């Protein structure tokens, strides 16, 4: 008896230890809109304000806002998809949006854009076209950026360079001139194809326009890869270019011993807070030779499983409207691809912070020269294949010829798979 009572006691204790769940997510009478954003929790005050305004225009709407950081957002979104509770609106960076579109997770926004040409007309057409997959538009721009070249004027001066690189060879020879002791000449970000302009300016493209066949394994491609590998070996190019992601390259450039950095505009604001050497007089801003650049933008999408797609669309229209987009541009100092907003904001910024304005101006010019934005549903698989071989070449493990031939074979196989 004693024992049985003990067991009972234990069981009761276990039950008591189990708190009941706080809240069950049941469907309620009010219309609910859930929004998942990518790492912009710092804009909380502005978002709260938007929500309040939107709610006053659409009474009875309840808004749930979720924000996750880059590496975790895909895991969270996929989990929600699997559970059948995807957030209505999701903010996606780069090519991932197309991948999810290919999986059937996102709603085709083309009919809405066709019905409301005024909304379509808000955006820079090239940035909008970034997220066209199989002829359908799945995302609209939220905030956009593309790569450019920053350089360290004092280091250039010390090396006797009057900056104006016209080609990759110029970049590499300048890099060599700057490098030495603890200095390196050139640094690039590499994630999301951000290194691709280096190839594109040499006339090398990844795929044929129909995206069916790889085109990078050419003499020009091999030569370019070879040059970059040699420059890395002799210390002109900082090795972090091929191994770092965001913090290391930017941190290294901010530390003041790297001549040039190829990165997108947001790098400027990070570098500025980190590097005490950076003033309007010391930091140089330039386009890459040939004006090639890789976009790294954020777009809004609506989940196909959204409970209230019309409401979600209404919110997207609201959030990309001039007044809201302007607030956002101001709050974060960035370009939105809303052409009117960007123009006005840059005019305003010219007065307050001319350097930042110069950086951002590059983001809305030469948008016809975007590269590295292939509309593939398996972009990340292709990216990983090519990147691994590129790392092999740049860091001197394999020679360019065999590595690119290998990469070509694997990319062909991957393109066949889907």
């Amino acid at each position, binding site marked *: 008896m004693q024992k049985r009572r003990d067991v009972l006691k234990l069981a009761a204790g276990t039950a008591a230890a189990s708190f009941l769940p706080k809240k069950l997510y049941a469907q309620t009478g009010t219309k609910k809109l859930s929004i998942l954003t990518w790492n912009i929790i710092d804009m909380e005050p502005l978002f709260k304000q938007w929500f309040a305004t939107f709610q006053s225009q659409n009474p009875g709407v309840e808004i749930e806002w979720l924000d996750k950081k880059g590496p975790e957002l*895909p895991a969270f979104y996929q989990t929600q998809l699997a559970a059948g509770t995807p957030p209505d609106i999701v903010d996606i960076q780069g090519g991932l949006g197309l991948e999810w579109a290919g999986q059937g997770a996102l709603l085709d926004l083309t009919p809405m854009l066709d019905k409301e040409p005024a909304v379509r007309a808000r955006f820079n057409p090239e940035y909008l076209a970034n997220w066209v997959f199989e002829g359908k538009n799945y995302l609209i721009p939220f905030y956009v950026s593309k790569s450019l070249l920053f350089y360290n004027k004092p280091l250039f001066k010390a090396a006797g360079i009057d900056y104006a690189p016209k080609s990759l060879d110029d970049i590499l020879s300048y890099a060599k001139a700057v490098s030495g002791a603890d200095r390196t000449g050139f640094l690039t970000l590499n994630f999301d194809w951000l290194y691709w302009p280096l190839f594109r300016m040499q006339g090398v493209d990844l795929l044929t326009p129909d995206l069916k066949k790889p085109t990078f394994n050419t003499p020009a491609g091999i030569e370019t890869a070879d040059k970059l590998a040699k420059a890395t070996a002799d210390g002109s190019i900082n090795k972090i270019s091929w191994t770092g992601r965001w913090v290391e390259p930017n941190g290294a450039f901010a530390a003041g011993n790297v001549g040039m950095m190829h990165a997108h505009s947001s790098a400027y604001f990070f570098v500025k807070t980190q590097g005490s050497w950076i003033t309007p007089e010391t930091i140089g801003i330039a386009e890459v030779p040939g004006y090639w650049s890789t976009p790294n933008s954020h777009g809004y999408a609506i989940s196909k499983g959204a409970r209230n797609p019309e409401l979600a669309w209404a919110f997207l229209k609201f959030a990309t409207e001039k007044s809201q987009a302007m607030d956002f541009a101001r709050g974060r100092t960035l370009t939105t691809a809303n052409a009117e907003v960007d123009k006005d904001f840059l005019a305003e910024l010219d007065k307050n912070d001319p350097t930042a304005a110069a950086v951002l101006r590059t983001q809305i010019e030469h948008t016809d020269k975007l590269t590295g934005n292939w509309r593939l549903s398996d972009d990340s698989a292709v990216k990983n294949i090519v990147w691994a071989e590129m*790392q092999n070449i740049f*860091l001197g*493990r394999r020679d360019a010829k065999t590595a690119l031939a290998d990469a070509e074979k694997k990319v062909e196989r991957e393109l066949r798979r889907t």
Partner: protein
Amino acid sequence: MNTAPPQRAGVAGSADAVAPPVRAADWYRRKRTREAMLVACFLLPSLMIFFLYRILPLGWNVILSFEYWSPLKAARFAGLDNYAEMFLEDDVFWQALTNTLIFILASPIAILLALAVALAVNSDLKGAAIYRTIIFLSYPLMSVAVGIVWRWLYDERGGFINFVLRGTGLIKEPIPFLQSFGWALPSVILADIWQVVGFYMIILLTGLQSIPQHLYEAARIDGAPASARFLRITLPMLRPSLFICAVIGILNSFTAFDLVYVMTGGGPAHATELLVTHIYNMGFGETRFDYAAALTVVQFTLLVILTFLANRAVGGNAGSVESA
């Protein structure tokens, strides 16, 4: 035929006399069932949790590995396609497999180190508590932060390790630890050892302190030297703890996920890719959960085999087979 009736008669006739032994057997049986019940009750909560959060997901992975599936597409039977792709076409898989094995095989170094520390700390050394605290201190750190710090320590230009090596004149040119194919994996392993050595130590300490002191006293009275006491008493009594450490070493090949992710992201060119990072990239990076599931199943099988071997290596008694 002859003996049967009397026996039966005997039983029937002297029912009272034989009753106690029967009742005793019954009592034993009841006690056994009661004990079995108790064991079952004791195991139940843990088993429930593992069933829900480990076994069910494992089953999910096994099923998925034979299908084509993503969260929004209806599953289609894929046969062995995922496995065929893995073994025949996926170079990254083989690299990750090799790296995972190297990662696991490096754990005995850390365990030996931890054992040495645990023995030193468990002795009458003054200040042992301080040493113990310091050595354990790295374990509670968040792995993400550990990764960030070690990434800096290994940095080619501003990093502390290169700074010291160059300052003392040991090397002329800085070593790009995380940027080179040869150094990257050992560097990550070292950072990992730094973090888990305190964990091994605490497990071994728990084991050491559970050894009854009278065993040592008896041995000392018998005049056994320290080395013999270590080999005859400490080591055999530590077997369960050593086994736990071995299992932790095996587990470490995926609990080090954050560390690898932050320090190298699996690079350069998959030089530090582990199976677990590959699984994660495939699943959440490339939205190929079916393929990731196949990878999970292969990793699981591999680890089961390794655990079995580890059990053998430390004497085969650690948990599964023993008789009282």
